Structures are given as structure tokens and as C-alpha cells.
């Protein structure tokens, strides 16, 4: 079976630190996998390896069956990425930023379509024509979400995507992820937010010092149990 996202004995050794040790993971289409872990646990390294931004020391990452390291450019058409702190081009408006990133991904949208994506991400209408330099972190995050959604990718790689969002916007984002998941999009989300992981995830994994120490289906745990499990591994 071809998984939409897969890691086989994936390992990353930095000169001063072993960031990831032998990760094995398979994620299917429509699945929302939430990766929990402390800062420096290896979550971002994992995402960077799936993005092809860092080269693995051993093992391999696959997107839609293609090895990332040898298909670094090709695999980008299957994925969209939202970092923890979406930084856009401050001299362009939110609309112009979305148009730019969409055109780079090969999508030439009409203005009405771009406005619809921004509205779906929750960006206030009055902000779309303003330069991004005047945006709050949450507003930039919403443009980042619109960029990812407008790409219609098979995989969403999210690194703390709700960071900076207010509770209402976070809820709307969770709802959006659920919709995308139902449409067959696989989601890989690194997060500190146990409650959000339980709410939107189909599976959660716990990472500690570069090692995936536990993976559970969220359906078998309530939020409290997940928190206890997480704390258990962190001590």
C-alpha cells in the first residue's frame, strides 16, 4: 500500500545533536496525525525532512510514494506547509501575498477566488488590501492558512499552525482541518496543544528527544487521558 506520507528509519544527526532517531511512520489520505512533544523534541526537524529542507543522515521520507531527498522539487506539488510563525512579504497586501504564493504553486486565481480563500481562513475583509507589514501575528497566520488551502495539496504539513490565533480562529481552523480531512487531505501537525490534537487528530504521536515513543488513535483517549500520557513521557 502507498501511504501519502511515510518515514522509514528516518534519522537526522546534527554535529552537536541527534535530532531524530529512526522514525517509522505511515499516514494515509484523510488522516490527521498530531505530533506532540516538547521544544527540541524533533518535531520541526521531522517536518523539515518531509519538506526536503534538510537531508536525512539515514533512512528516507516519502510523500505520495516519492522519496523526498531525490524528488525535493517534485514532491512540493503534493504538500502545503504552514509554519509556526507565518512571515509574509510586508510590502505586499494580504491579497497580493496569496496571489503570489498561489501563482508559484501553479494556480492563477481570480481576485474573487482569492478573496474567498482569505475569508475562509478568517481574515477580515478590511485587511485584505492592507499591507502585511501592518498585520498582527494571527492575521498573518490566517493568510498562511489561505495559502495552504488554496494549493489543494494532498498533504498538509503544519508546524504549530494555531500559534497566535485567538480561540475563535483556532476553532475555525480545527473545523477547516476536519473538512479537508474529509475531502481526503492528509494532515501532519506538530503541536503543543493537547486539546487541539485530541479535537482534530485521528492519531497522536508523542516525540521525546528525537524518538517517537508512542502513537495512539485519538478515539481511544479523552483529553485528560492524553494529557496524562503526554506528561508520563515528559517526566
Amino acid at each position, binding site marked *: 500500500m502507498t501511504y501519502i506520507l511515510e518515514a522509514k528509519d528516518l534519522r537526522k544527526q546534527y554535529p552537536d545533536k541527534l535530532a531524530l532517531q529512526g522514525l517509522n511512520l505511515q499516514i494515509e489520505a484523510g488522516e490527521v496525525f498530531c505530533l506532540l512533544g516538547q521544544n527540541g523534541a524533533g518535531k520541526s526537524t521531522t517536518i*523539515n525532512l518531509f*519538506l526536503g*529542507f*534538510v537531508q536525512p543522515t539515514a533512512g528516507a521520507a516519502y510523500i505520495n510514494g516519492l522519496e523526498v531527498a531525490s524528488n525535493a*522539487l517534485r514532491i*512540493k*506539488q503534493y*504538500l*502545503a*506547509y504552514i*509554519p509556526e*510563525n*507565518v*512571515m*509574509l*512579504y510586508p*510590502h*505586499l497586501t494580504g491579497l*497580493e501575498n496569496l496571489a*503570489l*504564493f498561489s*501563482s*508559484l*504553486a*501553479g494556480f492563477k486565481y481570480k481576485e474573487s477566488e482569492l478573496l474567498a480563500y482569505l475569508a475562509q481562513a478568517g481574515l477580515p475583509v478590511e485587511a485584505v488590501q492592507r*499591507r502585511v507589514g501592518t498585520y498582527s501575528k494571527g492575521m498573518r497566520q490566517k493568510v*498562511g492558512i489561505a*495559502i495552504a488551502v488554496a*494549493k489543494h495539496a494532498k498533504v498538509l*504539513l503544519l508546524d504549530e499552525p494555531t500559534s497566535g490565533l485567538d480561540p475563535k480562529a483556532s476553532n475555525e481552523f480545527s473545523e477547516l482541518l476536519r473538512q479537508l480531512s474529509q475531502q481526503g487531505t492528509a494532515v501532519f501537525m506538530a503541536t503543543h496543544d493537547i486539546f487541539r490534537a485530541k479535537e482534530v487528530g485521528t492519531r497522536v504521536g508523542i516525540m521525546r528527544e528525537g524518538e517517537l515513543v508512542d502513537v495512539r488513535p485519538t478515539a481511544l483517549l479523552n483529553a485528560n487521558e492524553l494529557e496524562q500520557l503526554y506528561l508520563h513521557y515528559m517526566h
Partner: protein
Amino acid sequence: MIQSIAQKEFVSTLRDRRFVVLSVLVLGLLLAATLVGRASYRTLQRERTVAQQTVNDQFHHQPNRHPHRVAHYGSFAFRPKSGLSFLDAGLDSFTGASVFLEAHQQNSVNFSQAQQSGSLIRFGELTVAFVLQLLVPLLIIFLCFSAFTEERETGTLKLLLSQGVSLRQVAWGKIVGYGRAVALVVGPALALAAWLLFGEEEFGNNPDLWVRLALFGASYVVYFFLFIVGSVVVSAWQQHARTALVTLLGCWMLGCIILPKATANLGANLFPTITKAQMDAAVHEEAQKGINGHDPQDKRTALLKENLLKKYGVTSEKELPVSVGGLVMAESEAYTSQVYQQHFADLTRTYERQNALSTWAGLLNPYQAIRPLSIGLAGSDFAHYVHFQQAAEDYRYQLVQRLNALQASMGYGDKERKLDAATWRAIPTFAYHAPPLSWALGYLLVPALALLLWAVGLSWLGLKVIDKTPIA
């Protein structure tokens, strides 16, 4: 993709207030330099044209005179400014503007602007070339130093690359985008220059100048391309914007200030030149070995006279159909001229060696490639100056020999007689024709190749560096 990134860079740059302020400043300087340069060109050109006409008229309106008196009265050759010299004055401010043409003597070209102006001119003039060669690169550095570092530091690079863009496409997009921004600053000044130049009748139908201006513009396009590529590559190579800026400013200082001075000093030490006084003394000393036209007791003059008597089968000078004095003068002039030409050629060769060192340094430093290219195309380089000097000397020699021939044709006792004033009106005056571009191209081959090699080499090396740019 490249176009999308280029457009983003262009729009972002135009909306960046820092760039707007700097560009307006540079554009203002360029436009001012163009207008001031053009005004100065017109003034100097007018002065020289009037002066040349005046001396030509004075020459033609001499009274009845002995030809040798006319040869000593002499004339002047004024060097016309080249059409594009208002863009790059090159050596024009330091080389002379006029030369006195007389018998027996090869005078140097005198009355340079530097001689007649205050000391400020020695610090360099504000010319279009000065702005293009030194200030625009600085603008490019300030524009591009954070091209990659900022994207990496803020994280936009990861978002950009996650859309399926390669690092090379990002780099080329930035290069094209910054190129458009620079064109917006430089373009109006060159357009103004073209309009000022070709709006005038004398240049309107001069294809040579059109081609020179086109090549002038093309050379600077390559020069700016080098700075843009270099800045983007350094930005990709360095981790932080500050270190990228320091590196680029260091390169600018080395390339635009230190290396040119160092090579000029090295050239002067490796190939020392003699002073004007030394050269005059050497020419004078050697000229003594030839006939002295003003010394009737000269042994060589006596020998020439003896040969003439034999040739015409007569026994005394009185019976000769030619004036011995005129022939002696012609012989003396030919010898002195030959001596001078040898010394002048030696001196020119030394200067050319010094210049060649700087020109070849263009392979190490693009600034030293654009400079000879720029002044060569503008017609204000050493080669064009020497061309004028030679033309003036050729005219002087022909004029003096023509007058010597007139004297010779007067026969015995010529010194007691004069020729009619109409004689002088039949003698053509000095009219300088600057060499065409095809002549100048030979001198510009090395710097042009150096600039192109830089463009190809830097692009190739730059892409290799960019491929290895860390993303995360």
C-alpha cells in the same frame, strides 16, 4: 515562477521607502550629471570651435610673408570634444585641449581643464560615469544585501520553497526584479542623455554615436548585472544580513577604490615614464645629429649644398633653381620629426603598458573592466587622445614641409622675398576627424571580454553557491 518572484521583488522594492529615498538621490545625481555634463560639453565645444575658426582665419589672413616666417607663425589644433564625452570625461579633463603647431618643434597638448581649474577637479568630477561606476553599485548593494538573508531569517524562504520553487528560480527572480528596479533609476538618465545628444543636428544622423551609446548602455547593463548577481550570491552565502552587507561593502572598496589605485601605482613603478623636460632634452640632443636649418656653417648643410650643385650640374648656389635654405629646412624637419616620433612612440608605448596592466586587471576586478570600456566608447581615453596628437603632428609636419617646399621653389635669394597673401589661403587648415568605433573596438576587446567573462563566471559560480544555500 521567475517572473512572479521578479514582480514581487520589483513591487516590494518600489514600496520600500529606503529604496525610494536612495533612488531619488541617485537618479537626481544622474540627471544633474547628465545636464551639467552636457552644458559643460557644449560650452567647451563652442569655445574650441570658435578658437579653431579664429586661428584658421588668422592663418589664412596673413600678409605677404616669407614661407618660413609663416612656418614659425604656425597655427593651433584644438581637440574637439567627443559626442559622448559628457557621459564619461575620462582623461579629457587632464589631457590638453590645444597644441601649437610650428616649425622645428613638436609641442605638447596644453591647457587641460585640470590646469585651468581649481584643485577640486583633482578629486574627480560628478559625471554620469562616476555615478554609474561607483554610486549605482552602492545602491545595488544596499538594495540586494538582504535578498536571501532576510528571507531565511524571517522564514519566508521556507514558505516560498514549499510552493515548489527551486533556489535557483528564487535567485533569478530576485536578480530580474532588482534589475528592473535599477533600470528604473538609470533608464531615465540614459534616455535623457540620448535625447539631448540626438536632438542636435550634428549628432542626429551619426550612426557611429548611436552604436557607441548603445554599447555604452549595454556595458553598464552587464556591469550592474554583475553587482546584482554578486550581491544576491553573497546574501545567499552569508548567514546574516549584517555580514553580507559588510562583505559587499568590503568588495566595493577593494574593487572600486583600492585595486585601481594599486594597479596604477604598480604600473607607474613597473613602467616608469620620463618627464616632459627629459623627453625634450633627449629629442634636442638627438636632433643635433641632423641638419640644423638655421646654422649656415653646419657641415651637413654644406654637404647637402654640394650634392645639389652636383645634381643640377652647376657651380654656384645662385645658379640653382631651388632655394638651398628651403631644402635644408625640409631635410632638418624630416630628421627632427623622425627623432620626435621615435621618442613619442617610446613614451606612448610606456603609457600603453601602464594602461594595459590596468586593463588586464579587469579580469580580476569588473570596475577596471568597465572603466576602459566606458571611456573608450565615450572617446575620452588615452587611445583617442593619442589619435588626436598624431593627427595634429601629421598636420604640422605636412604644413611645415609644404611651407619648406614653397621656400625651396622660390630659388636663390628667397630670404629677401615674400610670397603673396593668397598663398596662405590655399593651404588647408587643421580639421580633426575623430576615429570611428571600428578603430576603437580593438582597444576595447580585452575589457569587454573581461566583463563578459565576469558575467558568465559569476553566474555559474553563483548558482553553485545558491544550490548549497542552507534553508532550515
